């Protein structure tokens, strides 16, 4: 008797919970984010320069800025972001299940992720490639000398597959040591449990910057893959995808047009350049077409600065990470950044 009452209650509870959960799925991501008043943004578990909490517990970094820019555009508040730390293995499940609205976690844009995993990459915020880091006293000068080495590798990443391809195509063998997070890899690498750490070259630079003696480690010259990193959203909600895509484009275009966080308020008063006017909402109604108001890009730029400002602040040559712009310069400077026109 008691058992049936218990089971009956369980069943009813289950049904009720199920219907409640089903309700939340109606309405687009934009509506959900606005109703919640906060953006759920997936980031790494900690990679200095890209996404890591600072001494005050505030998330800082290049990928974090994308989250903050979207939050500023949508909610008028760059701090209205719930940062959800994800590992290489959990990130896609978190996005597909709706736990996060946007994934900005140095994730490589690949065909199968875009098409088969049903995601929508909204652009590229960092053009990267996979590299190798070794201790200097190992005396290795090239990745082709790594036959028989033990390699620390984050599981569930494209780098894992590139590594396998690189070693088998060069007819070399290696011993993989699978790790979950960058912090774990760093600990294993410094303990000498692996000879080599491999991940995106930007990640290697960021990791090395946190070492006690960065000069004792070298990043080998070989870049063995293309790793276009960018933010992504779920497939199917095109309105939300457009917001994320054009917020990123707005930051890139802002740098090209000379709009910075310092002068955005002044330029928003109206300029001679119609493209700046359209970007900042003084002319036309681009924001309304996105389902936001016309000041959306202005808010995003004011919150995190343009692409170049964000780059310099977090990972640029004057920061601890010390990455040069390289491929990530504007097309006008010989780089690959090329935002489509705002019109």
């Amino acid at each position, binding site marked *: *008797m008691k058992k*049936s*009452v218990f*089971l*009956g209650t*369980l*069943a*009813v509870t*289950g*049904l009720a919970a*199920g219907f409640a959960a*089903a309700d939340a*799925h109606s309405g687009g991501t934009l509506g959900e984010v606005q109703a919640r008043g906060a953006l759920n943004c997936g980031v790494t578990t900690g990679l200095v320069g890209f996404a890591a909490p600072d001494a005050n517990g505030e998330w800082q970094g290049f990928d974090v800025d994308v989250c903050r820019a979207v939050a500023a555009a949508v909610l008028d508040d760059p701090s209205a972001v719930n940062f959800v730390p994800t590992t*290489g*293995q959990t990130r*896609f*499940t978190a996005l*597909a299940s709706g736990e996060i609205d946007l994934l900005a976690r140095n994730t490589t844009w690949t065909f*199968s992720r875009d098409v*088969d*995993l*049903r995601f929508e990459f909204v652009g590229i915020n960092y053009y990267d490639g996979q590299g190798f880091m070794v201790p200097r006293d*190992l005396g290795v000068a090239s990745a082709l000398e*790594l*036959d*028989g*080495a*033990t390699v620390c590798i984050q*599981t*569930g990443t494209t780098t*894992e*597959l590139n*590594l*396998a*391809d690189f*070693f*088998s195509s060069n007819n070399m063998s*290696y*011993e*993989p*040591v*699978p*790790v*979950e997070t960058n912090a774990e890899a760093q600990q*294993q690498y410094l*303990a*000498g*449990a*692996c*000879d080599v750490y491999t991940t995106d070259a930007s990640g290697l630079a960021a990791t090395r910057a946190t070492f006690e003696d960065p000069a004792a480690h070298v990043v080998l010259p070989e870049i063995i893959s293309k790793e276009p990193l960018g933010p992504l959203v*779920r*497939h*199917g909600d095109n309105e939300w995808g457009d917001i994320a895509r054009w917020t990123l484009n707005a930051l890139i275009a802002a740098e090209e047009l000379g709009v910075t966080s310092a002068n955005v308020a002044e330029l928003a008063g109206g300029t001679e350049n119609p493209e700046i006017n359209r970007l900042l909402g003084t002319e036309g109604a681009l924001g309304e077409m996105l389902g936001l108001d016309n000041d959306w890009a202005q808010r995003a730029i004011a919150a995190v600065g343009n692409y170049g400002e964000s780059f310099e602040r977090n990972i640029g040559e004057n920061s601890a990470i010390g990455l040069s712009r390289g491929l990530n310069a504007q097309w006008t400077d010989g780089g690959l950044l090329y935002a489509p026109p705002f019109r």
Partner: protein
Amino acid sequence: MTIQVIALILIMGGIYWLARNTVQNLSELGKDFDFGFLSQRAGYDINQRLVEYTNDSTHARAALVGILNTLLVAFLGCLMATILGVIAGVLRLSKNWIVGRLMTVYVEGFRNVPLLLWIIAIFAVMTEATPQPRDFRGDDPDASMILGESVAITNRGIFIPSPVWGDGAMLLVLTFVASLVAIFLFRRFAHKRQEATGEILPVLWVSLGLFIVPTLLVYLAYSATGARDQFPVLAVGAQQGMTLEEFTDENRNPAICALPRTAAVNLSTDLRAIGERASIVPVETSADLQSNIESGECVLAVISPEAGETLVAGVEGVALAPLEDTVDRGRPLQFERPQLAGFNFEGGLQLRNSLIALWFALSLYTGAFIAEIVRAGILAVSHGQTEAAGALGMRSNRIMNLVVLPQALRVIIPPLISQYLNLTKNSSLAIAVGYMDVRATLGGITINQTGRELEGMLLLGLFYLITSLAIAGVMNIYNASVKLKER
């Protein structure tokens, strides 16, 4: 009754709703339900492989590698937990105060601290407190191998010698199997004789003798006759009188084909001593060897002198000449010891830190529970039984073996089954130390690379379910054989 029916209907409704919800949500996400990913190329590497696997293998194969790794750690864990548990359980009842208290500390310490902490703690000790392979290098190294240069403890795992079968291995195995049969027959004979006459034969000593002596004799005889035979090393494109070192200066890291396999291992040991890394291409027959040489699969060959002459004469397309150096033919069974080569130790068997941490932690943790089960089982046998056996004049070890343990087993086995099941399922905590079990391959990387969460998790659940049911089934059969026979 009415309420039961209503509850049943509600539960069925709940299950139906869950299934429908899943299907609907999957179709909303645009995902189908398909196990086709299992036959696609996996593309990733796995460090610990009990079966052949490369990154060209399928996801199904990767899952199999993971399953075998799970079963390996579960088997090793159950074995060691049982040994630890029985010893600790018996010793906790010891009349010796220090021994009893020590076991209490062990049981309470491991039982009351979460397993995950033990796994991580052992892994951290293994990684941080042990030397790196390159510390073993140089004239005055910081670290050195132990047990006669045969075992290396490093922060990448423990390297131990691995067995290699050579010529005459078959005879050795046959002798060993024959000894096992002889032991079995002798024990039956001794048992019958004891029943009939009451005379007790020295079963243990005779069994032990049968176990070791014949196999050892065959091994020694075989080793004495041919192990020191020198086999020529034939090299592709070598000049007469060239040494191995001169040859490898031109051919770095050569591939070896050899018959028997022990000769290949001896050659690779010689090569590592001069700083070369060699790969061994497995061959079964001399025809195999010849075709591998001709196709360029291997540049070094080792074979008996007579067959070597035929090979040099018969091989087509490549020039084959013997080098100055020769190698030992090898014993029927010999152990290949790990040697420092390149970045790491090579040869021998590598017990990775992840395996050791997981294995030891699972064993120590579950062992503490088994100790309590054993203690409870022994205490469940009335003290009167021990006293009665003592009154019959039995010695205390016979009382334990013949009177107490058989009765205690009836109490011990059923809870022991659950401990084995716990250990097997807890092995999925491998995630904490990067041990490549089935959760890491099928349930981790494969799911991540293919996006088949639902299918992967269902397969994973199914595997653990089947494994647990199989363990429980086998243990239930054993339980039926030791439980009280009622007539």
